[in-house]
């Protein structure tokens, strides 16, 4: 009895191992050669999405991902996909495990022409050599910037121009600075592609007359405390903290700063320091913490074009929420990242459209999307933010920005921008590397 069980087990294991290549398909299927002159459209166009659905960063990455798939499903149902070719989006649960990310990438890279991964810097870090080698354009969340960045290796697209954002903060800081010495700034960055961009900015800030005294990355995964990083950036006594941390991280940081007895607000009013958050600050977040925690916080609604998301009359938002509820029949979660994902989905579809325009359906490859898709996006209006233009050479300037602060539970508008300082251009002119 036992012996037989053992035998069966070993046989099943070996068969399973042998079946692995079979299941994945040993050779890619060859399409029949097209008739000359006839446009052969593929049955579908593949996009892979690598998302942590069951691991430690699920809470942060999954809502954004839902925005993407909601858009694609909506596109497939209303327009039959792109130019009549449906989008076959393959979702892969990475569980924040590098091994799954790598094997999933290898498994699906031949079936897709571009991919999306939510807030997983280690994923991009680890796969960057592969992306470059396979010429696979990858896209990460677009929070709503009109500038569409071209980051270091050329095969990772998207993200928010947080570098320009820090330029705006610098301008505001200098405008209001009264002391003789230089203002001291610490950077507390979220460890995801968009969050890391300001690492380019210290030369700009120094040139403006600001001292960058500390820089810390806040890990993206299962963060329960930011005390280590906070202690390190507080040690050199900064007057300001510029951040690109996301909502969950911000809640923790504000709570811990409050716990340390640090009061947010201008120095000349007897407060300790001022903290800038880059992604606004909404009713949901206020509900998630004690009011005294966010007193004096400066929240910048970057490039939402001053349209307040969460406004039920806003058509884009309504569409998104409606579809989200309809498709996934789940209670309304935090929707800010999902909205960003929805517009990100639009941009990826647009990139494929542009690549098809350039090379035709028959020659559509991941390389084509990387070379002619994303780089050719111009004045594309997602409805979320000002029209987006990708520009490899000028790293387009960010537009509007609204500074708000919070006092005793009430919002006060501080300052608003039409155009932000063009940090990328400055860096480029000064010969600082913004891409390598």
């Amino acid at each position, binding site marked *: 009895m036992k012996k037989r069980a053992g*035998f069966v087990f070993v046989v099943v294991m070996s068969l399973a191992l042998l079946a692995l290549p079979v299941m994945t398909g040993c050779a890619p299927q060859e399409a029949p050669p097209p008739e000359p002159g006839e446009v052969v459209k593929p049955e579908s166009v593949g996009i892979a999405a690598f998302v942590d659905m069951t691991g*430690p960063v699920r809470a942060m990455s999954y809502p954004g991902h839902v925005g993407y798939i909601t858009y694609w499903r909506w596109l497939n149902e209303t327009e039959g996909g792109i130019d009549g070719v449906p989008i076959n989006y393959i979702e892969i*649960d990475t569980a924040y495990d590098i091994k799954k990310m*790598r*094997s999933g990438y*290898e498994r699906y890279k031949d079936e897709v022409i571009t991919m999306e991964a939510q807030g997983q810097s280690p994923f991009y*870090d*680890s796969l960057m050599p592969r992306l470059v080698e396979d010429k696979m354009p990858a896209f990460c969340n677009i929070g709503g910037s009109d500038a569409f960045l071209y980051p270091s290796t050329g095969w990772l697209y998207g993200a928010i121009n947080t570098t320009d954002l820090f330029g705006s903060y610098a301008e505001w800081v200098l405008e209001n600075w009264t002391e003789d010495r230089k203002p001291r700034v610490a950077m507390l960055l979220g460890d995801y592609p968009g969050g890391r961009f300001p690492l380019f900015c210290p030369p700009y800030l120094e040139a403006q007359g600001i001292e960058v005294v500390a820089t810390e990355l806040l890990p993206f995964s299962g963060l329960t405390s930011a005390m280590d990083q906070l202690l390190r950036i507080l040690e050199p006594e900064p007057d300001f903290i510029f951040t690109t941390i996301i909502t969950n991280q911000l809640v923790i940081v504000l709570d811990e700063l409050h716990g340390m007895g640090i009061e947010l607000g201008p120095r000349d009013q007897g407060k300790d320091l001022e903290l800038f958050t880059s992604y606004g600050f909404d009713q949901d977040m206020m509900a998630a913490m004690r009011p005294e925690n966010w007193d004096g916080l400066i929240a910048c609604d970057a490039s939402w074009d001053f349209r307040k998301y969460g406004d039920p009359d806003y058509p884009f938002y309504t569409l998104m929420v409606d579809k989200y509820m309809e498709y996934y029949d789940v209670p309304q979660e935090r929707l800010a990242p999902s909205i960003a994902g929805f517009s990100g989905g639009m941009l990826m579809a647009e990139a494929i459209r542009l690549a098809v325009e350039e090379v035709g359906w028959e020659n559509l490859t991941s390389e084509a999307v990387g070379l002619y898709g994303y780089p050719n996006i111009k004045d594309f209006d997602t409805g979320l933010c000002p029209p987006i233009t990708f520009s490899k050479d000028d790293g387009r300037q960010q537009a509007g920005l609204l500074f708000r602060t919070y006092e005793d539970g009430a919002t006060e508008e501080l300052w608003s921008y039409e155009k932000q300082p063009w940090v990328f251009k400055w860096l480029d002119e000064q010969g600082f590397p913004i891409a390598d």
Partner: protein
Amino acid sequence: MALPCGTYNTRYEQAFAIFRTKTHWAMLVGLLVLLAMLPFVLNSYSLTVINMMLIMIIAVQGLNIVTGYCGQIHFGQAAFMAVGAYSSALLMNHFGLSFWLCLPLAGIITALVGILFGLPSVRVKGIYLALVTLAAQFIIIYVIETPLQWLTGGQWAMDTPAPQLWGFVFNTQLELFYLIAAVTVLMTFIAKNLARTRVGRNFVAVRDNDIAAEVMGINIMRTKVLAFAIASFYAGVAGSLWAHYTQAFTTTDFSLMQSIWFVGMLIVGGMGTIVGPILGTMFITLLDQLVLLFTPTMAATLPVLTVAQISSIAMFAFALVIIVFLVWEPRGLAHRWEIFKTSYRLWPFAY
């Protein structure tokens, strides 16, 4: 250990042979040929999976030495892999050492760190030692990320060149497969040798009965620390391979989860055996990949469920398989394997 029917040891040397009969040798040659052929029937995906699996086998083989043989529970093996990965990458990037030096040096450096963290094992046992190793996991990653940030680049990816041998660059999954497979076979062979000779018996002696071991002249402290050092050496070698295999890695690759999975692989495979780590790592990797392969397909066929929901169910099923497994065969797959071998040898006769 039962021998195949009709085979008897007539000399002591024969009792020590791993490959005892002509059939054994034929099987070994067949296996090696199969191993050599594998890349031609597998695609880059399967090779990626197998390459990563082979590296994990080395790490689990090391864990097996300290936990399986020497009985010292260890929840920090992944962090030691990180030490190996960073040492190897830094040695190559800063001193231009060749991969063939980086690999053993990474092992040795990691072994030294292992000695440092193994010293407490002399004083503490069981759950307390588990906590010490858990602390090692956090301390090591913290040290790499923060005090050594100037050297390691902190949380940024560490770029590492591919391995090179006399100008030949191991770049593709196939080339890397041969390299990694060779190192894995070598490390497994070494583990087998350690297990069947003096050191290995000392480890088991300390594990099974430290009172008797001491009376029998075994220096418990030295033995435990040696077990940690060897386990760490394995982690270091695995880490070095990982660094040059991925060519870009971060500390996230060596998370606590990974450490815990190493222990899981070892338990599923069977502690204190050489095939255990191999079978356990294979088994978990396979389950992982089945989840990865089938969730998108299942989502397509079952539109009522989202991929996220299916993934969660898959995780649950995964855990269930392991639990059922442990209840059914707590001695691990290796024990199943032994039973299979015995019944195969006696076939067609039952006992």
